[in-house]
């Protein structure tokens, strides 16, 4: 039940807000990803929860407007290419066990986004990864991890 800093060799997953900032080409995130790649050679991974969040926007837009324009279709294809170009960590049984431990111990009045963040954190912990995020809510999640697990966090500013 602890939060720790990322170390030079710590593998990271991108939180959804960092993935979005990357797609918006926010300078701070572009630089942080480049520095990470320069150390570890791989790009930061995604979790299957982040993939869900990235595709949710396209599906939600399609459902709302009943049709989707050609440009948005192309952008969805490229989003899928981007996902395919990253390692994606699955929400497996170990992730589920960690998530159950964390979520039941979180305060009940947390922002709703924290629950999805907890699933991302649980996936990262299960695979031995840290999380790159701009959301301080992860510190709260880190206070409720199982005893032997340290949630390593890198706070990246867009």
């Amino acid at each position, binding site marked *: 039940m602890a939060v720790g800093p990322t170390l*030079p*060799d710590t593998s990271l997953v991108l939180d959804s807000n960092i993935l979005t900032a990357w797609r918006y080409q926010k300078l701070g995130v572009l630089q942080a990803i480049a520095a990470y790649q320069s150390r570890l050679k791989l*790009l930061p991974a995604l979790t299957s929860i982040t993939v869900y969040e990235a595709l949710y926007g396209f599906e939600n837009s399609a459902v709302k407007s009943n049709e989707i324009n050609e440009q948005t279709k192309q*952008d969805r294809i490229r989003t899928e290419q981007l996902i395919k*170009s990253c*390692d994606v960590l699955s929400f497996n049984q170990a992730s589920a066990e960690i998530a159950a431990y964390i979520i039941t111990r979180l305060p009940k009045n947390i922002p*709703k986004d924290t629950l999805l963040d907890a699933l991302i954190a649980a996936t990262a912990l299960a695979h031995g990864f840290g999380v790159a995020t701009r959301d301080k809510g992860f510190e709260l999640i880190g206070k409720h991890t199982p005893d032997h697990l340290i949630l390593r966090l890198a706070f990246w500013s867009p």
Partner: protein
Amino acid sequence: MSTVTLDQPIAGPVLQGSAPISIPLLRPDSHPYLLINTPGERYRLEFPIVGSPIIEDNKIIARFIVDDNVYLDLKIVGQSIESENKFTGQFSLFYQIEQRRPRAHFVADTLMAVIGLAGRFDLEISKPKVSTNLNFELQLLEISKMLCRRQMSYRLMVIEKATGKQFLLPSAISKSEIEGIAFVYHAIADRSFVWHSGKMEFAVPATQEKLALLLQSEQPFNISLEPHSFSETVLGESISLGSAKIVIVDAVLRNLNEVRRELEKLDGRLVNVTIESLSGQVRYEFQEAPCLSDKSWEEKIQRLIDLEDQLDTALIARYHALAASTLEGLTEEEKAEITMPSNIGEAFLIDDSKGDNN
């Protein structure tokens, strides 16, 4: 609770030609060369054929030598059109390593990454004198995995050079073996570094000095341990790293009451202490680890080492461009809509009527 991590295979990809190619009919005396442009077209790498190409009705196979132990095999499957004096078909290119030494993997993965980022290589034939581009597309993830294997091979080359040991890479490698290689590399190349750590157990004598040291500090605290000898196993070889100073950052005593009780006896007996870093950080300072007395490499290898920044820059530019393209051509409103956070969290919301759980 456990996580199963599959060993990562150490094998190069096959580059497949995505479009039909057409080359002049090769003859046994054609002497083809493979030509590869490095990122930014700074210089060209040339690789001659080994022997003569194997020419059959529907395929051509040519082996090019890249380095000791390393070959690139070009295979073109298709058909010859005698009337036009040409061969058309699909190609594939893959590397072969005869002895799985780190240098061989370093060279092979560097070149395949260069080719992958360029998206093409050239085939030059002396007779008849012709140069042909062979184009293909390689997944970015595949290229970044090559750079990752390249880094591991380079680290092994450094360890070999500093220790005089020689390694052979297995066909697959576990995450813990990769971490072991990184740890020894940092000990040799950086000497001082912070590493992740769980619990540490050791014994201290029950003396006034140790009692004061361990029990009068407010937890968590940073604690230096007396230097002791380290060795680490790399691919089955034990590497002695000599004595190291260790500082456990954000340390807490896990068995505090038991340690207090035993140390307060002041009878000099050894007491088992379990210390854990709350933030999982331990600083190592290796003063006696093997050194790289000669930091120079053979010119050919040095040129490939020097490509690192160019390879990283080229790869990251491709990734950034791909990320940007996912919102291309959309209005600000459309962008906001498709990047809107999902509200699935509402399904998890717990009735707060009984108060805060905190």
